[in-house]
């Protein structure tokens, strides 16, 4: 393999070689061609755009709920619709916005950042996207048909079981949740293998950008967390369809089993969303201060620690279920413990920012927003880790406030920072700074005025998930205030989305590295060419672009063929070149496979036998997908 890597290789700029490379990695054009795309840049952008569409939809649902709660005993909507709205809001934001948005960022950025041409299983990537898209469309069709699930995003049994939710609604939930987790798992597998096996030569684990570390931790968490909710929703589907009684006390089942299965996934889920955000924050701070993040090793270790500890917290969602006190106290300690790795992260950033001359820019504004909002959410999180206090505020608006501070602060604000930061790379144009600032301040004002009073509403006794409340409870004024503030926040979010849409045409051309950032994705053109890096880079520091400012002096890999999709495989720890891997080409099979799997899942809701039909269809598609092409015959 030594011949592959040549530190003295010079850049050859033969136009014909570049053209050949471009042609090899080109995505097919035309409508049919659009469905054949497998390149990670294409799939990543699709994930991000689709997730933003669901973000807007979920936001609209939230505003409709706020409209209903604007006054006591409002008759705008009845309990059926309201219960569907809050179920769909939670399901959308968790499963259809936050996780896919973060995965989309990873899918788009990780190969560019680690200096490779594509992810290891490009077709699986495309398959994962279609699964996500179909699951989302199906769920929203059910909403418009008035058949949406209405048992909450947590679908507690027995309420979600067939006896108390006889319609199709909860069936949509169980099947679509199982279905979309396939997508999360494919993306996780993809990210793990790509990160561990395709890093640029020399990018040993201790020279890997923190963003890539956060994606690696997120992916491992997905692999351990998602199967439990899939298992749970399959058991629930079996209960509902075949009366298996896993969760029916009269039949020997147990209602708490569901809660354990759900929250063993549900709590790590929060950190699955927050961990990539930590990577975004490190990247943006490092770029805007032009400094290394203080204590790289401590940052990586605290990321990994958060990943591990997050699996030991799930029972803090069940403090009021009557479990023994001694058992609960372990979960109090573990839940509060997460403050330590989080504290390390926050103060490493503060140490990095200390005395820094920060360049102005919207991404950094959103990061400052993160500090304020996330610290509040984190502290109320430590509060609810206390069993006695949680007994008062559990399932009240206090928790609604807490979780929105954590998720908006810990995921949405960093994600918006990422949008402003990487938009020039993806589109080639800068987003408007002016609109960005307006958007930021509206979001900050709106979200604090929306969620801060909710803490008080919760302490004053207002439970969650109520479609109305009596005038005599005295919650009317605060609710009116919250509803108006929510509108301000919604306006702020919409401004950024508007900004992203209009900047495609109107934005200033960005150039390849507008922020003077130090990681490899900025070495490519904006937007990147189909092959990403013209020459696969060789890395020797954490900041390859800063430390090798002169482009011509950057060492690179030579010897990969331009006439077929070749990527370099390197060793897990040291990233020494190991092999060349041939990646598959664009094809329709991922789409067809996703359709067959979707058919099986949807069919199961109506006639269980259709699941078997879907299974065989999927099998046929996988045969087509894996049909050997014998590239060696072309030699």
């Amino acid at each position, binding site marked *: 393999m030594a011949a592959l890597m040549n530190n003295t290789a010079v850049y050859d700029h033969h136009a014909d070689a570049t053209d050949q490379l471009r042609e090899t990695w080109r995505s097919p054009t035309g409508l049919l061609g659009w469905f054949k795309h497998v390149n990670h840049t294409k799939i990543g952008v699709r994930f991000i755009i689709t997730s933003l569409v669901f973000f807007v939809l979920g936001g609209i649902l939230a505003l409709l709920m706020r409209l209903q709660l604007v006054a006591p005993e409002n008759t705008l909507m009845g309990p059926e619709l309201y219960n569907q709205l809050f179920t769909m809001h939670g399901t959308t934001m968790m499963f259809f916005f936050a996780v896919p948005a973060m995965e989309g960022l990873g899918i788009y950025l990780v190969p560019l950042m680690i200096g490779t041409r594509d992810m290891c299983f490009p077709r699986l990537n495309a398959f994962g996207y279609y699964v996500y898209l179909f699951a989302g469309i199906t769920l929203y069709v059910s909403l418009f048909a008035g058949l949406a699930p209405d048992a909450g995003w947590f679908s507690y049994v027995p309420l979600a079981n067939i006896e108390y939710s006889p319609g199709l609604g909860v069936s949509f939930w169980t099947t679509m949740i199982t279905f979309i987790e396939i997508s999360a798992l494919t993306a996780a597998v993809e990210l793990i293998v790509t990160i561990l096996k395709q890093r640029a030569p020399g990018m040993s684990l201790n020279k890997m950008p923190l963003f890539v570390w956060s994606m690696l931790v997120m992916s491992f968490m997905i692999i351990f967390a998602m199967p439990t909710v899939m298992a749970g929703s399959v058991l629930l589907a079996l209960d509902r369809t075949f009366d298996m009684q896993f969760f029916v006390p009269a039949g020997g089942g147990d209602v708490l089993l569901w809660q354990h299965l759900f929250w063993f996934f549900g709590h790590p889920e929060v950190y699955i969303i927050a961990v990539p955000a930590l990577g975004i924050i490190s990247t943006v701070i490092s770029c805007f201060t032009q400094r290394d993040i203080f204590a790289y090793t401590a940052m990586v270790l605290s990321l990994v620690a958060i990943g591990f500890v997050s699996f030991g917290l799930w029972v803090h969602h069940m403090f009021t279920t009557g479990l023994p006190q001694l058992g609960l106290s372990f979960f109090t300690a573990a839940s509060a413990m997460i403050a330590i790795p989080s504290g390390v992260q926050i103060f490493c950033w503060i140490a990095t920012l200390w005395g820094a001359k920060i360049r102005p820019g919207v991404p950094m504004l959103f990061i400052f927003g993160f500090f304020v909002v996330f610290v509040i959410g984190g502290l109320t999180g430590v509060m609810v880790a*206390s069993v006695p206090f949680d007994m008062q505020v559990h399932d009240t608006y206090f928790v609604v406030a807490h979780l929105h501070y954590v998720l908006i602060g810990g995921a949405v604000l960093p994600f918006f920072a990422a949008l402003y930061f990487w938009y020039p790379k993806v589109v080639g144009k800068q987003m408007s700074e002016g609109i960005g600032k307006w958007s930021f301040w509206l979001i900050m004002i709106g979200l604090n005025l929306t969620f801060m009073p909710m803490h008080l509403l919760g302490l004053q006794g207002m439970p969650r998930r109520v479609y109305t409340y009596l005038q005599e*409870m005295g919650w009317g004024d605060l609710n009116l205030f919250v509803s108006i503030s929510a509108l301000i926040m919604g306006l702020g979010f919409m401004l950024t989305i508007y900004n992203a849409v209009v900047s495609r045409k109107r934005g200033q051309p960005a150039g390849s590295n507008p922020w003077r950032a130090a990681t490899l994705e900025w070495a490519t053109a904006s937007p990147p060419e189909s092959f990403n890096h013209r020459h696969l880079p060789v890395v020797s520091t954490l900041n390859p672009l800063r430390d090798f400012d002169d482009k011509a002096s950057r060492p690179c890999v030579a010897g990969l063929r331009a006439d077929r999709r070749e990527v370099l495989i390197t060793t897990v720890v040291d990233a020494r070149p190991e092999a060349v891997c041939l990646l598959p080409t664009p094809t329709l099979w991922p789409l067809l496979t996703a359709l067959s799997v979707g058919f099986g899942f949807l069919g199961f809701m109506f006639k269980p036998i259709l699941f078997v039909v879907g299974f065989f269809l999927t099998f046929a598609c996988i045969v087509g997908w894996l049909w050997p092409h014998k590239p060696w015959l072309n030699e």
Partner: protein
Amino acid sequence: MVSSRLKITLFGYTLTSLSLLNGKAYASQSKPLRQSALDSVSAQSQGIETLWWWMFYGFGAVFLLTIGLLFFGLWHHRRQLSTKASFFLVTAAGVVIPLLTVIALVGGSLTLGHSIAAKPPADALTIKIVGRMWWWEVHYLHEDGSVAATTANEMYIPVGQPVKLLLTSREVIHSFWVPQLHGKTDMLPGRTNATWFTAEETGVYRGQCAEFCGSQHALMMFTVRAVPPDKFRTWLATQQQSARLPTNAQERRGQRVFMENDCGQCHRLRGASASGTLGPDLTHFGSRSTLAAGVRPNNTGHLAGWIADPQKIKPGNKMPATLLTPQQLLDLVAYLQNLK
């Protein structure tokens, strides 16, 4: 409790001082319905309230320290921290302070949790409450565990005497919550959870279901009346009796309406031929202050409106509308109100 009122107001003012509306929100503090965790009337609830104020001030300080350090570092310095100083900052503020906070919190909350979860005194009055969709079935138990009296949606408890609750559910999960007396405890089908508290002040406290339980989760409420022990004993003695017989012609006509319209299929009248268990026991319905699980005051107008069209007030609840002539309706209401 004056000082805690003041603290609530201060807290609310801090949180929403930008709001012009907030003055109005607190002007109505003396509203008739009380359901606030910041207005505790039992040792359990008081302990949690104290813990909350400690955390509020303590964590408020942590928040100010963190954000203060961030902006102090940005505004007042022009040089990068040395590695040694950075290390000190991260260790002190990122490890030691959170660790101390966590130890204090875990210690405090375990101590409080231990005292709350301790076994109730042997002389505790035992009440069994069953969560239904969407109302509360309340059984007062004798010491041997047999049922002394059954009522619904309104509980009387003696002030100064420990009350032990056995909580379970028939259909789906509910959660029993009277913020002024204690935190919530879930009611799970197939399991019985226990909790206890002692009300220290007479008063009327509101409670509400705190676990999402289907379409009428929002309006599944109840009332707890803490009364002096002698008054409680009188009340319980009344509740143990059979349903009162009609005393005049109108009530007799009302009783006939009750029987002819099969109200007894779902409702129970002890001592009369009505023994349904799908809906609340109505034996002493006239003595209750609210109807439809705390949704409306129990008076002639609301009761007649409820019987005529229960789905309007609480859509999705299990009680069907009853088609009656106005006279029949008035007779029925008169009969029910007589069931003191």
